[in-house]
């Protein structure tokens, strides 16, 4: 290699310098790849303000229109100082990141159709760093979306308590990561943009409705109870609601009724396990996505 470079007088010293110095595969190189894939997601999100605004419309509708409209019916069982809006706020907050996170993975399908994915896939860098960068990028922009929605917490009588906000942001980040990983896993398989959009649209609403975002998880008919326990979103909406209620002055009886926690056949799933389930699902789906992208035709 060295003799070869020396034997050929180069027109520009820089070319040789670069060629000789391009490192073999290393962890630092992989980290640079993770960072640049992550940064690209942010740059694209910044230039796409319309998406940022439109994806807030749905949660705003749910919180203010549905929340206010239903409060005359559902608000009767609420303790003083807590409205139906407060009750659904954690679930709607989760919803605010749902679309953005899953659809951030749609850019993979988009990139495939418009060729950019090929530029990424021929790079001398591990598939893992590309997928990790993508998942972290989607998680970041979705969480950012959630933070914008957090600003509206006061309208739902949720206090701006620093500890609560930090907890909620952490939980949003985890949720966003898992949802993006899910989207990336699907995008590895689904090659058509329309098919991807249709499938994810179809999944998003059931995920939301079965998560207990709009109703307490206690006292449900058996069939619904089982479905809610299968929905991964349940395991993050539960801890988020718990976080909100632990910062409200609510009599114990009411909290037991409104935020009963998740139970498996009567056994109360602890918070750490609930959050752990979401984290493990996210990591698992990301691993599947990495394996999918390692395949070569």
């Amino acid at each position, binding site marked *: 290699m060295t003799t070869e470079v020396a034997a*050929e007088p180069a*027109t520009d010293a820089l070319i040789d*310098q*670069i060629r000789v110095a391009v490192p073999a595969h290393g962890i630092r190189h992989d980290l640079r790849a993770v960072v*640049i894939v992550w940064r*690209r997601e942010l740059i694209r999100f910044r230039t796409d303000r319309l998406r940022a605004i439109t994806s807030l419309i749905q949660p705003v509708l749910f919180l203010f229109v549905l929340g206010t409209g239903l409060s005359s019916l559902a608000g009767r069982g609420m303790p003083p100082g807590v409205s139906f809006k407060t009750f659904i706020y954690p679930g709607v907050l989760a919803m605010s990141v749902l679309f953005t996170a899953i659809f951030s993975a749609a850019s993979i399908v988009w990139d495939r159709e418009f060729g950019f994915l090929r530029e990424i896939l021929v790079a001398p*860098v591990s598939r893992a760093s590309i997928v990790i960068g993508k998942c972290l990028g989607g998680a970041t922009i979705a969480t950012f979306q959630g933070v914008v929605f957090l600003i509206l917490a006061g309208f739902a009588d949720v206090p701006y308590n620093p500890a609560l906000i930090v907890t909620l942001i952490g939980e949003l980040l985890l949720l966003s990561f898992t949802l993006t990983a899910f989207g990336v896993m699907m995008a590895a398989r689904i090659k058509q943009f329309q098919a991807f959009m249709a499938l994810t649209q179809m999944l998003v609403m059931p995920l939301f409705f079965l998560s207990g975002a709009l109703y307490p998880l206690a006292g449900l008919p058996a069939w619904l109870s089982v479905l809610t326990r299968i929905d991964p979103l349940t395991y993050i909406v539960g801890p988020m609601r718990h976080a909100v209620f632990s910062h409200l002055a609510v009599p114990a009886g009411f909290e037991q009724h409104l935020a009963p926690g998740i139970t498996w056949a009567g056994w109360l799933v602890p918070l750490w396990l609930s959050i752990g389930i979401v984290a493990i699902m996210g990591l698992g789906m990301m691993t599947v996505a990495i394996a999918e992208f390692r395949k070569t035709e």
Partner: protein
Amino acid sequence: MALHTGATSSAVVRAGIGAGQPVISVAGLTKRYGDIEAVRGIDFEVAKGETFGFLGPNGAGKTTTIKILCTLANATSGTASVAGHDAARARDAVRRNIGLVFQDTTLDSYLTAQQNLRFHAELYGVPKAAVMPRMRQVMDMVGLWDRKDSLVSTFSGGMQRRLEIARGLLHAPRVLFLDEPTVGLDPQTRSSIWKYINELKGREDITIFLTTHYMDEAENCDRIAIIDHGQIVAIDTPAALKASVGKDRVQIHTADDPAAIAALAETFGIEAVTREGAVTFSVPGGEQFVPRLFAEFSVPIRSVSVSRPSLDDVFMSYTGTTIRDAEASGTDALRQMARLRGR
């Protein structure tokens, strides 16, 4: 081993390129997609510094071969090595050493030109201190430095292709693959792209592997391989390929064409036809034939033209069809490829 070296150097000498190991070497390569055999056992070598053209109609196996060389597809059997690394087993080593310009654009049109290049530099691990100077160097080379902050979506097709060439060179690869680099561009832009490619050969120490179906562009190559139905049917320099066709095309305008055709058959044993309003025939050494024609021919001749075989004639003689006709019949194959790609 000694035998192998001998074979390599003779190939290089034939190509008129300086000594050295081949940069690309392919042996017994095949690729099947289900029942379709896209590549049916091809062998070739490309020497360092060569501009090597891969010609053939769509669906002939050009793109499949490039995909295997670029580590984007696995061969069914056979081996391919690029820059001294096995394309199937040492993917990252191959990827570090190659630059790619695909026929479809692979730029992110929502990013600026510079952001696209920066993305590439980071993915390829270009040393941080070299990123900026090198970006400037390659963008200057294709005349796009002053547009570095424009979104790619505002670029014309020709500018996008130039930016892709710049990006493909950013990490100083040893081999640059250009898959139909000028397809879909107007003639003026095509010639400007070629201007950049030819300048590049003087400035960078690089081997170029390109596919095209424009015969006039193939003239720019040091050597050409013609691939048809997944097999290489001819491989040599453009001049040698043209010489191998062996015959020049002669066209004469006469006072009496039917008489001229009859006289040609009688006097010289040549079969001639009327084409483009002239009596047309092929003979070896056309220029030497003309004096004989005047000396021995009975029918008055008004004008004569002799033309060397073009690469179109070469393509015709090896594949039995012109590349444009092959394109038309290749449409089915193209659809097939599209389906495969979508799978």
